[in-house]
């Protein structure tokens, strides 16, 4: 638990230079730590990718809605006129 927190601080660049030095030294002594850091970094990337996919899905839903519902007729007409 503590280590996960430490790795997060290490990766975010918020660690003090002293703590960072200790972490770098521990990495040399314990190759598993380096792996753990690598995987945690990857986890952050994948969570962000997942978030972006969700946002794209929401945007597509919004698109479908504004181009299909009667409520947005005026909007649809404006767009049709632009591309006619």
């Amino acid at each position: 638990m503590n280590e996960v927190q430490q790795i997060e601080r290490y990766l975010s660049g918020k660690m003090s230079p002293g703590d960072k030095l200790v972490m770098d030294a521990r990495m040399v002594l314990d190759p598993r730590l380096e792996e753990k850091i690598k995987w945690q970094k990857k986890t952050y990337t994948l969570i962000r990718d997942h978030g972006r996919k969700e946002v794209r899905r929401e945007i597509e839903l919004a698109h479908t809605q504004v181009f299909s519902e009667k409520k947005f007729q005026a909007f649809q007409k404006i767009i049709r006129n632009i591309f006619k």
Partner: protein
Amino acid sequence: MSKIYENKLALDGDIHSHFHTYIKEMIQKEDILQQTPQQLFIRLYETVFPDAAAFIRKMGGDMAAAKDIFQDALVIYYERSAGEDFTILHSEKAYIMGTCKHLWYKKHHEGRHEERLDSSSALVELQEEKASEEIFRFIELSGKKCLDLLKAFYYDKLNMKDLATKFGFSGERSATVQKFKCLQKVRSEIENRSLVKEDFYE
């Protein structure tokens, strides 16, 4: 109030209009928390898409091009407005229009050649994609609530207070603990897997 904003005020001296923008943007920031993303995007479609579409049309693009560029601009806007120091300097519409123009010029004037992929880098990408899918399954194994929580923090960039409210934790501390527990779960899943499959760590 941020340093950037204060400096800008001092530079322009146009206190009233800047203060007005500032307040307006703060209200919008509130909106982002309160409405669902889909509601936000519907509003942005109504208010910004006609101008974006007119721009793309003027440049010779069709509806499909307008849709692609506008949606990319919305993703960029969403991600930027999730970051902290963003709200003050731009109006929402100006920001999204600026992004649309930038994306259009980028696509049509610079680096068309970039789109071509040689087969070896495509293969590497495919392998990386496969590895990523595998790791993403471990994240999913940590449970839907964890996935939602991690996404809300690391992607939507909610602060701990809003996170606690949204997920029903007693407070910021409890939300922090829970977030790290979720990361720990993901890590345990990865470690369990690596015991089964020795070469997982390459």
